[in-house]
């Protein structure tokens, strides 16, 4: 290995390392702005100038390859003079408005100016002023402060996959801006705030609310998608002020999706419920915990004693903690109730009982960027798990070939090798085509062989098959839409056949933060129990709802609504005022994840525990405590937990080590029957990115984004719009089953002519039917 000397220290370097890399490894700090370990080298700021022996001029450490025998000085006179000079130049046009700048206290420019700059400037002339740019509700701009490091521009090009910001102009007329007046819409846009070394790009919702030195930083884990991004929660006076990424190379690297970054707003929203309440007639009366719990326990006991445990249904959210879900399971079990589930978004449960284990990613998250071949089935990955999309983008950049089966030819912001774009009811057929192409080429597709052998193979399917046969590291992933599909089990079975025939890993891109945890905790119906779907289709006498909003988490919403409406008892454990309060009888205010200890198990089976970072608001209490007391009141045995850890221990006796053995995506091959696509126009009903769970639904900044607005639009292909004589941007009547909604019509030619994109789990579409299925558009 080559060895270089930096500041009299000998450092071994890897081939291709720069002086900056070597210094980093040895813990030697070289001031820098444009350099960032995840971005390409720009070498534009010149802050990292160092002296290199035998080179007459100082060199930028970030762009200078480390070569054997090189002698570098970061603090010699020459280096210091160069650094001082650069600093003086950088500050010439900088407004030095630190007292009113949100970055103050966490500003690289401030820190480096103090450490490496002069005492005063010799520049007394007028400074440049740059007009603000409106980048939307998430990112605030003060472009006069920009030092043109181009980090934000490179982030767009290299990580987000879409160049939304650029640097038009030249010299001192250069300005960072989007094209025209457009706003940034990337689902990763907030990362530019962390990247910007100055106060040019800051968080709009956080703006002017606190100084960094007033905030304490506490660790936590994001409760949204199945990745479980690590969070640094910034708190002050018992209140959460913001979420920033906590670096974890194996999970979220140094990034955070906007959903994970801005959902904190909901924690402090007016919609929190902070007092226990019981219903008296049509009114809610605030009561103390004792009374509320006694009432809930008493009523549950009555239902149990008169109708038996199976008259109760337990519906829990997969965004709740492992401990909460485990205790819910215990409570149900003790009441002799096997009706318990977290899968409110699933329509096809025919795989239950045929699975080899708990569905999971099938590999470590960190291995995603190393894949060579990928087949993505029914996954709107940019919306479902924005940072998984980022990982796949990096894989494609390294040469991976990405194949897609979906109902919309969405831009994944990376090159897609082959795609089968067809309406949802044709997906089984699409996978059968791929399987049959493999079979025809002599691969063993196992038990599905006879089912698929009659399926005509399209060229695209053949190309997908060929693509998957080649390459070393490969994977077939089933996305959220595939899991929500009415033939999810057949898709699973076919995906397994394709994976086995090609030597690919089979994985699920899990949509919810603790979906794997919920399965581990046993929040699944027992042998005689009802799954989420049946619990609502066959109304129960009583429901216990933990963190769910059935009319937004379940499709069709009307089914959930009528089941709850007709119930004799609905016990609601919720952190927010929700629609279900219309039918509930007892409201037990629980603490969101920032106010309780707990753990999530992410899609790769990683157990991530966290502590509460602020005290519960008002009378709200951690749900595990509420459930424990509920258990005590019902005089259930084994309900004496004194900490979240003790619950976790009971839930996972072998701890994290026991998890891996329970994860398995295998499925007993099912007969593939749904080979014929349906007739007519079909709905593509995704859960919108900012409607995933109660928290994001209540984050105003996220709801103000263009992405959120787009989710309220009914999207159709131009040809369909024309055929039906409809007009874009006008209201259109969407009719499905017996319900209808009026939505604005938008044109999206990336959709096939027979697919209409109408969001599910959205307050504007609750009167419609299933996520997928026949649907009609009518002129108003």
């Amino acid at each position, binding site marked *: 290995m080559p060895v270089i000397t930096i500041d009299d220290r000998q450092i071994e370097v890897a081939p291709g390392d720069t002086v900056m890399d070597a210094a980093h490894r040895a813990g030697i700090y070289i001031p820098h702005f444009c350099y960032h370990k995840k971005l390409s080298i720009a070498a534009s700021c010149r802050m990292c100038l160092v002296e290199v022996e035998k080179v007459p001029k100082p060199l930028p450490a970030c762009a200078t390859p480390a070569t054997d025998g090189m002698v570098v000085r970061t603090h010699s006179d020459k280096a210091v003079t160069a650094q001082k000079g650069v600093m003086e130049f950088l500050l010439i046009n900088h407004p030095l408005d630190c007292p009113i700048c949100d970055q103050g206290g966490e500003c690289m420019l401030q820190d480096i100016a103090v450490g490496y700059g002069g005492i005063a400037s010799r520049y007394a002339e007028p400074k440049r002023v740059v007009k603000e740019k409106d980048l939307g509700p998430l990112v605030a701009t003060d472009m006069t402060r920009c030092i043109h490091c181009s980090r934000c521009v490179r982030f767009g090009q290299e990580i987000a996959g*879409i*160049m*939304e*910001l*650029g*640097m*038009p*102009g*030249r010299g001192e007329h250069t300005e960072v*801006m*989007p*094209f*025209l007046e457009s706003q940034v819409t990337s689902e990763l846009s907030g990362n530019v705030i962390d990247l910007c070394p100055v106060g040019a790009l800051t968080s709009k919702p956080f703006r002017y609310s606190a100084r960094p030195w007033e905030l304490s930083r506490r660790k936590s884990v994001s409760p949204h998608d199945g990745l479980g991004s690590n969070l640094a929660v910034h708190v002050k006076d018992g209140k959460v002020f913001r979420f920033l990424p906590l670096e974890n190379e194996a999970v979220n690297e140094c990034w955070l999706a906007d959903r994970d970054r801005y959902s904190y707003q909901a924690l402090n929203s007016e919609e929190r419920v902070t007092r226990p309440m019981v219903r008296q007639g049509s009114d809610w009366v605030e009561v103390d915990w004792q009374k509320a719990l006694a009432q809930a326990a008493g009523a549950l006991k009555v239902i149990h004693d008169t109708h038996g445990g199976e008259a109760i249904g337990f519906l829990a959210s997969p965004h709740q903690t492992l401990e909460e879900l485990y205790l819910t399971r215990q409570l149900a079990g003790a009441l002799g109730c096997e009706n318990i589930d977290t899968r409110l978004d699933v329509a096809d449960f025919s795989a239950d009982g045929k699975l080899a284990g708990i569905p999971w990613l099938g590999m470590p998250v960190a291995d995603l960027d190393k894949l060579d071949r990928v087949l993505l089935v029914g996954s709107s990955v940019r919306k479902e798990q924005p940072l998984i999309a980022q990982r796949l983008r990096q894989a494609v950049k390294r040469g991976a070939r990405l194949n897609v089966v979906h109902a919309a030819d969405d831009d994944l912001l990376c090159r897609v090798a082959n795609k089968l774009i067809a309406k949802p009811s044709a997906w089984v057929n699409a996978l059968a085509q791929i399987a049959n192409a493999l079979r025809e080429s002599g691969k063993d597709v196992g038990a599905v062989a006879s089912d698929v052998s009659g399926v005509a193979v399209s060229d695209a399917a053949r190309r997908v098959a060929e693509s998957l046969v080649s390459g070393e590291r490969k994977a077939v992933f089933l996305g959220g839409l595939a899991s929500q599909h009415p033939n999810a089990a057949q898709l699973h079975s076919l995906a397994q056949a394709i994976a086995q025939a090609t030597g690919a890993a089979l994985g699920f891109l899990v949509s919810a933060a603790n979906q794997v945890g919920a399965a581990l905790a046993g929040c699944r119906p027992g042998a005689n129990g009802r799954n989420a779907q049946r619990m609502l289709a066959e109304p129960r006498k009583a429901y216990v709802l933990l963190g769910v909003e059935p009319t937004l988490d379940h499709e069709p919403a009307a089914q959930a609504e009528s089941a709850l409406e007709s119930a004799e008892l609905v016990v609601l454990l919720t952190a927010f005022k929700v629609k279900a309060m219309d039918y509930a009888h007892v409201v037990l205010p629980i603490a969101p994840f920032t106010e309780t200890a707990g753990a999530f198990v992410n899609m790769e089976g990683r157990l991530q525990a966290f502590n509460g970072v602020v005290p519960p608001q008002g009378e709200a209490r951690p749900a595990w405590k509420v459930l424990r007391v509920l258990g005590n009141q019902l005089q259930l045995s084994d309900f004496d937990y004194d900490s979240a850890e003790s619950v976790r221990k009971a839930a996972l006796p072998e701890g994290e080590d026991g998890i891996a053995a329970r994860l398995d995506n295998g499925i007993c091959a099912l007969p593939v029957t749904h080979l014929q696509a349906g007739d007519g126009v079909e709905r593509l009903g995704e859960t919108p990115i900012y409607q995933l769970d109660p928290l994001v639904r209540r984050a105003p900044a996220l709801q103000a984004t263009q992405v959120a607005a787009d989710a309220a639009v009914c999207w159709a292909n131009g040809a369909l719009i024309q055929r039906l004589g409809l007009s874009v941007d006008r209201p259109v009547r969407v009719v499905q089953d017996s319900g209808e909604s009026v939505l604005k019509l938008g044109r999206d030619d990336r959709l096939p002519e027979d697919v209409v994109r109408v969001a599910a789990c959205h307050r504007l579409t609750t009167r419609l039917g299933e996520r997928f299925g026949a649907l009609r558009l009518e002129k108003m």
Partner: protein
Amino acid sequence: MEKIALSAESRALIDLEVAKFPGEQKQSAVMSALRIVQTEKGWLAPETIEAVAEYLGMPAIAAYEVATFYNMYDLKPVGRHKITVCTNLPCQLQGADKIAEHLKAKLGVDFGETTEDGRYTLKEGECMGTCGSGPLCLHNNHKMHAHLTPEAVDKLLDELK
């Protein structure tokens, strides 16, 4: 902003430029493509830049960066005759400032402006690499007039209808 389409002629010319680069790197032809459409349309409106970007499969902002970097691209409508005077140091030393003053007085416009009749646009240029022939100006990006004197300028202006 309305989307516009490039004319068949422009597309044919751009295709010739694109062919000079590897198939994966269509965007390498962006400078030529912008020049081609500017010659056709007279200037580069945002929608024109967007159309070029779309044709080359690159982000509009990236094409806009190029269009704003080089000053031979016109981002605002220009008169029939665009006169660009080099005002960099070597030309200045040879009297470019006087030529510029003369042009401004004669046309009644400043740098970056167009005469009311739409006949002339005056622009400030950067070194054109022929400093030995200064002071000088460029007419409509294509023809250079060297060793300018006030008289030569008057004559030139008269010739440009």
